[in-house]
């Protein structure tokens, strides 16, 4: 059974801090790993990672994948209150029809 675990489950930091969110996985026929941000509505896509060691970056957010150790991290630097959200990790696998398996999510709260 495919499994995706995120840590920590929740995190509270002050504005301006840097945070690191973790995602580890065990899946059959790994294809890629995706990060989503979920505020009060639908999850919105952040990154897709396919290759180990190649950092994806968008503004203050960055992410990297380690396919040997089966994990990914999402970094957010100089956090702002607008970064408060649930961050979801999902792994895309190919077993018959492709599907996404989602992790437990990390609830990030930024205190002004």
């Amino acid at each position, binding site marked *: 059974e495919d499994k995706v675990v995120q840590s920590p489950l929740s995190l509270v930091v002050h504005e301006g801090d840097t945070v690191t969110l973790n995602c580890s996985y065990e899946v059959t026929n790994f294809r890629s790993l995706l990060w989503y941000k979920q505020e009060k509505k639908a999850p919105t896509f952040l990154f897709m990672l396919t290759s180990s060691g190649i950092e994806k970056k968008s503004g203050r957010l960055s992410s990297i994948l380690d396919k040997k150790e089966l994990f990914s991290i999402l970094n957010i630097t100089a956090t702002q209150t607008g970064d408060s959200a649930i961050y979801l990790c999902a792994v895309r696998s190919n077993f018959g029809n*492709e599907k996404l398996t989602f992790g437990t999510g990390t609830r990030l709260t930024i205190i002004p």
Partner: protein
Amino acid sequence: DVKVTQSSRYLVKRTGEKVFLECVQDMDHENMFWYRQDPGLGLRLIYFSYDVKMKEKGDIPEGYSVSREKKERFSLILESASTNQTSMYLCASSFGGAVPAYGYTFGSGTRLTVV
């Protein structure tokens, strides 16, 4: 702007009621999914459908059923609602075959409370 629309944002139902959650997408997607989201448990797949009139069980189908009579609409049915079905329900869709690089397109969710 393409989207997935869930008919209700908030819903309160009584134990034992039959509950319908509706999801409509306007992207001509083949695949549609129903998840429930609970703190500490993440998104868990209830049912999915790869085509009209087709349905497959996900990881937690007990107590739920689904209907896909038209390509754009995927309904989740709680035959007899129970308090442990209080949760956020998310609908998602994607094209068939390979999952797109951006993953699924999600609806805004329905927060269901069963009292």
